[in-house]
Structures are given as C-alpha cells and as structure tokens.
C-alpha cells in the first residue's frame, strides 16, 4: 500500500495546495526595516554633520564665517582658505603653510611603511613556518612589546637617537616608526602565514625551494590581502602620528600633523576658522585616500587569495 502511494506521487505532477508557496514575501516598510534604516540614518547624519560643517566653512570667506551660520552653505565659494592653508599659513615662525609638513610626512611615511612592512613580513613568515630555536621566546617578547605604552620609551629613545646622531632628523623618526610598528605587524603577518595550509609549505620544501624561494614565490603571491591591511595600518598610523613627530624631529622636519597643530593653535591675530578647517581636511586627505584606494585593493586581494587548493 505504501509502495503504490510513493510511486504514484513520483510519476504524476504534484498538485499544489492552499497556503504558503515559494519565497516568503517581505514588506519594504516593515517595522524592522524602519527601525534599522532609521537608526543607520541617524548615525550617518551624526558623523556626516561635522564633516559637512568643515567643508562648508573652509569654502567661505572670513566675513561670512563671522556671521556665525555654521550650517548654511557658502554664499560665495572661495578657495582662498585652502590656498592659504597649503602655502601661506603660519606654523610658528615660518609662514609657508602645510606644504613643508606635507612633504616631511611623505618622506617619513613612505620609507617607514616600506621598511617596516618588508621586515615584519619576513619576521612573521620565519616565525610561522620555520620554527627555529628560540622562536617561542622571540614571539613572547614580541607580544609583550606590543603592549608597552609608548610614553615609557619616549625618553630612552631620545637618548638612543642622540647617541647615534639621528636625533631631530627624519631618518631618526623613520627608524622609530619602523621599530614601534614591528610587534603588531609581525604578529599580523605571523598569524596570517600560520593560517595558510602547512602542507603548502611542506610541498614547497619537497620541491626544493629554500627560505627565500618559498617566501617570494609561494607565500608572497598569496599574501596580498594581509599586505594591504599592513599598509593601511602603517600609513594611517604613521601619517596621523603626532607624539613621535613632535618629540623626535626639529622645526624644519616636523610632520604635517605637527604643522597643522601649529597653525590651529597659533595665538597671533584672529582665528581663521576657514583656514583651520581647510588645513585639517588637507591633512586628513591622505589617510582617507589610502583607505579608499587600498580598500579596493584589499577586497580584490581577498578575492585573489581566497583560493583553496
């Protein structure tokens, strides 16, 4: 009896009955959606308003700023504050704007990021794949290192730099950034390389590749996403750094953040809010751009790296 029921059911087309069928319909304006999008909207506005105020103010002339309507769009758009912030604003004694600080920051950030990323990636690879003697001790020290508050080391490093004659120079700051970035970056790379299948490494060894061969030809091509992450971390961290910049460099080699601070906090004359706003936006533009550009790369890197096999 049961047998016949099963066989007829299979051969004939099933006839539908009343009730739910297919995907469950969803209302666009359900209470859940309103709540969700409403919250998101409020949060977005909360973050966007200050940015809006900054952009609007930076495009106004001083008379208009003095009228005090910080939310109103500029009646007359002017780029003069931007030009002034870039090339004329006074940072302490000199009045050459942010441009000098910008180039200083570039000269600090680029080598620091490149050097620290390269060294940390090799460190991480060695720690993850070549379990050399003392690797665990080294790793423990490294983890410990990433928890040390920077303030503790400020003064010893000053002495160190003075002794090797790099105090107050850009090269000194590059070294400082490279060293201070090392624990967290090495940790990042080590964890990433540990997550790659160990058998891949073994296969490469059987295939006769050495330390560098495996790193450059097997590991590196699979590590684009983690390099993107490391570069984002370092660029934003180093570009936004103020403390090391102000401590370890002199007035000619101050990075952009220090220059910005000097512009905004300069006490002579009237406070030019429009110039301050423009200067702040210019300073923040670099990490922002990096974020957008490498963010894309990041996604593409993940897509390229997400290959099992």
């Amino acid at each position: 009896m049961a047998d016949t029921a099963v066989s007829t059911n299979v051969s004939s087309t099933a006839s539908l009955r009343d009730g739910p069928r297919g995907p469950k319909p969803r209302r666009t304006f359900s209470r859940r959606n309103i709540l969700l999008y409403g919250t998101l909207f409020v949060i977005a506005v909360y973050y966007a308003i200050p940015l809006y105020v900054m952009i609007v103010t930076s495009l106004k002339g001083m008379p208009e700023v003095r009228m005090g309507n910080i939310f109103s769009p500029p009646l007359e758009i002017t780029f003069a504050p931007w030009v002034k912030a870039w090339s004329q604003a006074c940072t302490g004694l000199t009045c050459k704007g942010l441009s000098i600080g910008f180039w200083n920051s570039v000269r600090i950030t680029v080598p620091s990021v490149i050097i620290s990323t390269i060294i940390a990636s090799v460190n991480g690879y060695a720690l993850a794949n070549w379990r050399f003697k003392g690797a665990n001790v080294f790793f423990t020290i490294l983890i410990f290192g990433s928890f040390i508050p920077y303030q503790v080391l400020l003064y010893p490093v000053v002495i160190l730099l003075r002794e090797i004659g790099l105090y107050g120079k850009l090269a000194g700051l590059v070294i400082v950034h490279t060293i201070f970035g090392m624990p967290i970056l090495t940790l990042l790379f080590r964890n990433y390389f540990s997550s790659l299948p160990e058998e891949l490494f073994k296969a490469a060894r059987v295939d006769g590749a050495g330390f560098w061969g495996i790193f450059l030809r097997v590991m590196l091509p699979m590590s684009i996403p983690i390099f993107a992450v490391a570069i984002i971390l370092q660029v934003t961290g180093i570009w936004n750094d103020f403390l090391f910049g102000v401590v370890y460099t002199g007035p000619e080699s101050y990075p952009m953040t220090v220059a910005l601070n000097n512009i905004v906090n300069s006490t002579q004359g009237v406070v030019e809010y429009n110039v301050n706003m423009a200067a702040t936006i210019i300073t923040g533009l670099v990490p922002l751009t990096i974020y957008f550009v490498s963010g894309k790369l990041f996604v593409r890197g993940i897509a390229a790296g997400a290959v099992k096999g």
Partner: protein
Amino acid sequence: MNYAVEIKDLDLYFGNVKVLQQLNLDIYKGEFLVLLGSSGCGKSTLLNCIAGLLEVTDGQIFIGGNNVTWAQPSERGIGMVFQSYALYPQMTVEGNLSFGLRNARMPRDEISKRVSRAAGILQIEPLLKRKPAALSGGQRQRVAIGRALVRDVDVFLFDEPLSNLDAKLRADLRVEIKKLHEQLDNTMIYVTHDQIEAMTLADRIAIMKEGKIMQLASPNEIYNRPRNLYVADFIGSPSMNFLHGEIKDGNFLLDGITIPLKGYEFAADSSQGGKAILGLRPEHILTGDNLASATVRTTVTVELVEPMGSDTLIYSTLAGTFIHVRMDGQARVSPGDKVEIGFQPERASLFDPETEDRL
C-alpha cells in the same frame, strides 16, 4: 641492498610527547607499502620523517642505501602527495608541475619534456594552463601526483591522498594509483585510515598503534592471521567477534560448547591451555547451505537484522557475547528467528587475553 627505504630505531618526540619510539621498518624496492592506523597514531609523522620535513629525535633513515637522516627533503629522492593537495594557488597547473624542476635549475626543454610526459600519464594535458581553483577535486589530486611524478623520484609518499574526495572518485583514483604503481614500478608509501584502500592497494600493510608497528604483513596475512587483538579488531568491517573461553586438551571450551581445535595452526606452543579469546569474523560464520563445511555448529536467536543489499548482517548473542553474522543478501530472516550457525576452527584466531598476542 634490496631496500628502497630503511628506518632504523627511529624516535620522534614533540617535546615530551613521544610520537614514534624505536621504530624499525624496511621497505623493498618497488613495493607498495600502506601505513594504516587510527587517527593520531603517528602515520603522518612517520611519513614526514621519511620526507625530511621533521627532524628526527634519534635513529637513522636510509633511502636507496644512502643515509639521508640529515638531508633536505629535496635531496632525498622522494615525491610527496598531500591530503589537501597543497597546490600553489597562484601558479598554473604547468607552473605547479614545473616548480620543483625550476628550483633544481633544470634546462627548459627538459622541464617541458617531463611536464608533458607526466601530464600524458595522468591525462591532464587540457588543464595545463588553468589555475588550481578552476579544477575539480580529482583533477587537483592528479596534479598533486603529477608534481611528484615529474621529479622522477624512486620513492613516492602519499599522505591520505584520497580522503578529501567523494566515495565514487575515491574508488576511481584508487584504481589509477594502482595502475600508476604497476606502470612506474617505483616504491610507494601510502598513509590511510581506510581499510579498503589498504587492502586493495598494498603489497604489505603496516598497522600502527601509538607510534609502534603492530603488524607488518601482506593484506591476506593481516586479514587471516592477525598477530594480536588490536590488529584483529582493527581490520574487517564489521569487526571480528571475540568470544572468551578456555583451551583444554586441544579443545576450546565456550560456555558449554566444545570446539575441537584440530587444524588450527598455533603461532606459539600453547599446549598447556588456559584462558583464551576466540576471534571469529562475521563473514566466516556459516549459515544456510554453507553449513555443510562447518565442523562446529550451534543455534542462535536473531536479535536484529540489517539488510545491506549484497549481504545481510544479523546481530545475536552467543555464549553471553554479542556477535555479528554475515549472511547471504537473499536470506529471509527476522528478529526472533532461530538460525543455525557454524564455523571452521582453522579459520578462526585465538588470542591470549593477557598479552593480547595470537596463540
């Protein structure tokens, strides 16, 4: 010097964990040796030691008569195939195959000759320009085998190469590996925990437990004459039935049943008798028409029936012990039925309950 691989007094410790202890193993040239054992018994560890991927704690390893204990993996004349295939994802199939040769700085035309030969043998020529991500599991595994093949090595090491594949593909590739072995005639060491793979592929099987080799013998020998309880229990599915009894005057006494042991080949002298365990494979318990050849017979009550198509498995109790019996697939039995069973003592195995060794 007829050995391809010799392992002498090998120890391997991870810190305090002694994974391999005093392991000795000689593998003949051209032999297909399977390392079989439950998870965590040290099969992969042993294979990694042979490959040179792990530094041994003590002992020696010879490959082709050379002491390779301190040699790099690439210098040992071995090729290895991994469970996860471990193909280089950013290289094409061709790149994967030639990577080892390029590292060895082989001339270009020699490389392409070897790659195309391997691709021919494994029938992956149309795939050479693809990346591993664009391959099926079976194709990836073939490429992984190809990577060992191009290096023209004497010893192939396989670490559970088929366990990531579905059952059908597994059976197909198993046959292919067997064919490959016949074609190439090199030594293969193959790790698995699949009994069927072990039985079908191996010239000899090494059964491992906790880093020791329990028995090293042909599949036939291992199946029919397991050297100890562990091996007897491990090989065969469903596993062997074990009945506790006593040996007295050349008979095995089992809860009132007297089983004459005439014809049973004792491994050791055990004329003195004493407690013993009788091991009977479910498929060696005879029923129905086959009963004629049985020298020992008794009747049991069926408790559970599992029809499996080709044969039917019944569960019952004999002398207070739960037993499995394999019957013909066409047998019509249901729980509660009385079934006459019998067996031939010469096909059974006897074990010492103390030492667990074969009697």
